[in-house]
């Protein structure tokens, strides 16, 4: 059952990725990305990574989509460019075929070589919970996250503030 759901979600992800690439509307691309993230959240949940799934849902589906949509609305060009749209379709026309060929090739190679990565037995799974691991062993990363958020804040100050004057 787990396998089935994960594979289904994977297919959904690849599908939305293609739509994110090929759809002409930026808004629809952003929404496709959000859908991808949602599918990924399901996969994460199925793999037992509950916190990660939660973050993926809240941040990637929520926050990043908001960021994209506001960025898109702020950068809408004054004129619609039909030639550009046609050009866009032409440039991405090859993508699905490439992906199908590549996917088939990869699957063929992996199956042919008998590739397999067995899941660990129950006893091999580490006991530690996410809380313990995250707060006690990843303090460097937490410091890094704080710094990153600080950097983001300064970036917003620099990149957005003075723009109003222009």
């Amino acid at each position: 059952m787990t396998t089935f759901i994960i594979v289904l979600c994977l297919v959904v992800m690849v599908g939305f990725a293609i739509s994110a690439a090929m759809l002409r509307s930026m808004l629809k691309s952003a929404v496709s990305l959000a859908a991808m993230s949602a599918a990924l959240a399901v996969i994460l949940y199925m793999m037992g990574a509950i916190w990660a799934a939660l973050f993926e849902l809240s941040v990637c589906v929520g926050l990043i989509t908001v960021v994209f949509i506001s960025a898109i609305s702020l950068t809408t060009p004054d004129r619609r460019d039909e030639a550009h749209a046609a050009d866009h379709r032409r440039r991405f026309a090859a993508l699905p075929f490439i992906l199908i060929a590549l996917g088939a090739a990869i699957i063929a190679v992996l199956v042919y070589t008998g590739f397999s990565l067995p899941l660990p037995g129950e006893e091999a799974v580490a006991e530690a919970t996410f809380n313990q691991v995250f707060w006690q062993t990843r303090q460097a990363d937490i410091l890094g996250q704080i710094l990153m958020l600080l950097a983001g804040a300064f970036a917003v100050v620099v990149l957005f503030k003075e723009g109003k004057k222009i």
Partner: protein
Amino acid sequence: MSAGMEFVLLTFMGLPLLMVLLNNLLKKEIAQKICLSLGIIAGIVQMAAAVFVFASLKAAGQTEADFSQFWDLGVGASRFSVDFFSLLVLFCIGMVITAGFLTAGKTLGDKKFNFTNLAMILLLGMNGIALVTDLFSLYVFLEITGVASFVMISLNKEGDGIEGAFKYLVMSAIATVFILGGLAFLFMQSGSLQYGDVAAALSDWQYAEQPALLIAGFVLVLVGFSIKSGVMPFHGWLPDAYQSAPAAVSVILGGIVTKMAGVYALLRLTADIFVNVPVFNQILMLLAIVSIVLGAVAAITQTDFKRILAYSSISQIGYILLGASCGSAVGLIGAMLHFFNHATFKTTLFVNSAAVEIATGTTEIEKLGGLQEKMPVTGVSSILAFLSTAGIPPLAGFWSKLLIIIAAWQTGNVFIAGLALFASIFTAAYFLRLQRCVFFGPAVEGLEDTKEVTGGVCLSSLALSAITVGFGLLFPALLLFLQGQGLI
């Protein structure tokens, strides 16, 4: 280990953070005035701290020290730790940051405040890269360094900064994808991303369950860090980013940032992690020699001061990586010393380009000429730095290049060593062209009233030139010391 030393260790992460807080908590008017001093203090204290920790470690007979004050870490935690190489690098970072802040006074106008904030975050990011012992934490600090430098490049939104920053961002994002992909594959096999654990997992990688995954892992990591360090053919973004950055930012960026983000990480990888993976070293050596030669060749016909320096950086990065890829102690030490030397002379040159830009308003060499008499300090320090880059004895660059080429020779790749030696001619060629166009010859019309830039810019180019010359002259002593340590 003494308690005092632990506090000193904390300055590497604590002091810049404190400076950021100070800068933002102070009144805006006061902060505008003193923010650059904060940065200079942070840089100088960092250099002093690096020297102090080095002396303490030597005195205690240790080779590395963990941060244990205030850190209650679980088993297998990602922690900060310093060894001699990190200390050397931390010293370089402090040096370049100081030079950058000294340059900033004349170039940034009202952007000093934001510059200080971002440069301190950048400093934290770079220090983090030097201190971490976990590949994932390395990625985290890489990303911090990256974000801070994107914003700093585009600090001056009127110019081409946005373009350079965006190109850097895109290439850096690709690099991140590759690095993280590689880490994921390595993580599958090792179960941890601590340097030691990954090295252990790779020690007999041919016999692992799925060697293909490990190969994919280290190839992706290699590619990612190569993009970050701007090795040919992954170099496209580097000249653009350097050229478009404001003068003070390009000092920091060209002097240390890209070296920390890419080259330092690659050195760590070859020295600590991929020790038993000869393929890694072979590919790296190939990339290195391509960068050395093509970087130098490409620099020959450039027309912008900073762009020449950028291509020269690509070439010099090649030398560092060539040393690292030899897999011997001599090569690694040569690479580390060249890292230090490169930070010194390339910062000098970027400071000089900043001085030229301040004095004349342009960095295009066709519009410049005859500045030697008008700007003697800049001209002479530029000559010194360029001689050191080209590896002319007895300047510092000569010795480290010598070690690298000896190491390459010892690996049996005589052809590559010869090519690396031969590329010095190109180095001399592009720098002579630069020197001739900018400093020698008759003064170009409109530049008759040019004056030497005084203050911090002048001071930093003098100090850095002194380091280049002094280090070159003291090098035999250093070599004896290393010999005494049994390192070579």
